[in-house]
């Protein structure tokens, strides 16, 4: 089923991308953890958009880099929390 | 031969009996395998359910046991025939090892379910009926009401204790 010549996953991915970007920009409890969890939402939306172009290698790379960057953010947050004395 | 919705209901009953029997024989309602299963059981008991039923629900959630084995065996028979079912048993064993579980219940349930589903395929059922039937069977345990489901599991656990010795 095509809506306006775009495949459905492209449109759903764009919707998730917009919602997730708004949620990341204005997190409700305003701390780093909520921002990091909300950052996962546009990541999956971007994966869904990239899915509509049928590039397997791009999807592999994106998934791996997404998890690696999450790990780096987590280490940074732990180091920051340890340095602040909490 | 039969109508498809009727076949799905029969398959649901067969799957329910299979995974419940294997789970009860391998003593899943006795204790929580990991600390997450124990936490789920305590929350279920706090909400009005039974502790032993909660242990079994927590064990189903936190590691692939006989219900997952039944589902993956149906998927394997649907995709690749009898060999796919045994390959699914190997995958269930690996998944159990990942989740810090001994993995006897999952592997045994997967092998028995493979034989049952393959036999039913020869008798006129389709393997896709068993996939939908397993989804309905797990819905009756985990998805409708945790209070009634945990009490039902506790009653079956008492029957199993009376028939086969070996539990506390």
């Amino acid at each position, binding site marked *: 089923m095509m809506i306006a010549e775009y495949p459905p996953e492209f449109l759903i991915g764009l919707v998730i991308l917009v919602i997730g970007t708004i949620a990341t920009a204005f997190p409700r409890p305003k701390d780093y953890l909520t921002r990091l969890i909300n950052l996962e939402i546009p990541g999956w939306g971007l994966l869904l958009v990239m899915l509509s172009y049928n590039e397997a290698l791009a999807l592999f790379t994106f998934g791996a880099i997404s998890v690696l960057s999450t790990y780096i953010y987590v280490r940074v947050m732990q180091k920051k929390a340890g340095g602040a004395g909490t | 031969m039969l109508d498809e919705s009727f076949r799905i209901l029969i398959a649901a009953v067969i799957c329910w009996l299979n995974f419940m029997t294997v789970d009860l024989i391998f003593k899943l309602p006795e204790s929580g395998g990991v600390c997450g299963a124990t936490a789920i059981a305590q929350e279920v008991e706090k909400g009005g359910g039974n502790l032993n039923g909660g242990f079994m629900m927590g064990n189903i959630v936190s590691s692939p046991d006989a219900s997952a084995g039944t589902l993956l065996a149906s*998927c394997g028979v649907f995709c690749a025939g009898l060999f796919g079912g045994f390959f699914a048993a190997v995958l269930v064993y690996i998944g159990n090892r990942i989740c810090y579980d001994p993995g006897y219940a999952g592997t045994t349930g997967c092998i028995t379910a493979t034989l049952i589903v393959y036999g039913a395929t020869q008798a006129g059922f389709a393997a*896709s009926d068993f996939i939908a039937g397993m989804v309905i069977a797990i819905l009756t345990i985990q998805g409708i009401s945790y209070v009634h489901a945990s009490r039902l599991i506790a009653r079956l656990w008492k029957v199993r204790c009376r028939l086969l010795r070996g539990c506390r």
Partner: protein
Amino acid sequence: MIAIYVCAGIAVYAALRVIFQRNTMRKLPFLNVVSFAVTGMIALLLPHPITIAAAAAYFVGSTLESNAIASTWAGGIKKDE
């Protein structure tokens, strides 16, 4: 063809139950139902021998995620007391 409709309907029903259940630990059995239904949908959508590996990988991954959430929740409560 009814089989995949059953799986899709049960997935949507269980997702609604996940959202409207307020207790964190009691959400996890409904999440497990969602993962069962999606595993069935994956196997029914594309009958190919490698699909069984994809279904098993998805199911084990989802179970591991639930396990990690439940264990961390239990550990966090124990540390609070």
